């Protein structure tokens, strides 16, 4: 979509052929993610990084929906062009940025920088949903 990988293959073909592997990958991620959350639910739910990750996953879903809708509506006019129209490219770029931050946040969940049992600023306490005098979970 950005014109960097497979610029000479129709964009719709790439999107169509990679849909199923992408869904398989997402399903694996979703199931293993729920299992990981189930292991440490309270600490995860109160992690700032986990919360950002969840918001970004929702943003990814909305972006993917809009992206596919716009692509299907207009693909016949630019399918064989090396670069897609600007709004499609913006959607593709947003998708890359969102998923990159999802990976970063996923990694940062393991760190305890903003855990509730440490002395945090009122803002972090609010964002993480910390409770006064909370012990480590």
């Amino acid at each position, binding site marked *: 979509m950005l014109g960097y990988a497979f610029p000479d293959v129709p964009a719709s073909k790439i999107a169509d*052929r990679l849909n199923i592997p992408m869904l398989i990958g997402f399903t694996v991620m979703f199931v293993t993610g729920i299992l990981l959350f189930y292991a440490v639910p309270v600490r995860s739910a109160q992690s700032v990084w986990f919360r950002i990750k969840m918001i970004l996953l929702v943003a990814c879903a909305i972006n993917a929906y809009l992206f596919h809708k716009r692509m299907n509506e207009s693909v016949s006019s630019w399918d064989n062009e090396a670069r897609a129209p600007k709004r499609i490219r913006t959607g593709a770029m947003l998708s890359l940025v969102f998923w990159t931050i999802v990976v970063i946040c996923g990694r940062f969940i393991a760190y305890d920088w903003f855990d509730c049992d440490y002395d945090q600023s009122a803002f972090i306490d609010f964002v993480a949903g910390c409770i006064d005098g909370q012990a480590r979970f």
Partner: protein
Amino acid sequence: MPPAILGPYTRTILTAAIIAAALGFSFTYARLSVYTELMPFFEWMETTWFGYVGKTWGAAFATIQAGHLIGLAVLGGCVIVSDGRLLGVLLTDVPHRKVIDRADRVFFWALITLLATGVFMACGVAMKIYYLPVYWYKMLALGAGILFHYYVRRPLVAHEIESINPIILKMTAIASILVWFLVAATGRWIGFSG
């Protein structure tokens, strides 16, 4: 051994022999002398600028670690797309050559990212990983993966794909997926060890 005896598979057989020798070396007592001699090198790694930054700023270490993961994700994507095409399960209506060549270019940069961030991370926790058997398993898997990719898979797929025995092609693709999966799995395992 003269290359002619090995026929067209010289490079493959030599690579397999090097990997087998490395495995044999690693899983026998022969490794102990080299292992002890490597300790000063790992101690030195911790004293480098990378080691200092990695140990002093947790956030810097974590950020580089996230970069390492992104590199791994991109590399994994290249392996899946390229080997999926060889297996005939992905992008089957896009020519082999196009998929393999494009994926290989991205693979190279993903590997460079992995190695660069990996060296930084290793410097930050050099003495910890020195004592972790799984770190050495990862290095073995990584070495095998790089050798396999550049000395077996790449020369093989440089030929006309249609002229290669489909079974060899599929076995190569499966081996490639497995070896890179092993690299990722042992890398994750390091995080749970020590």
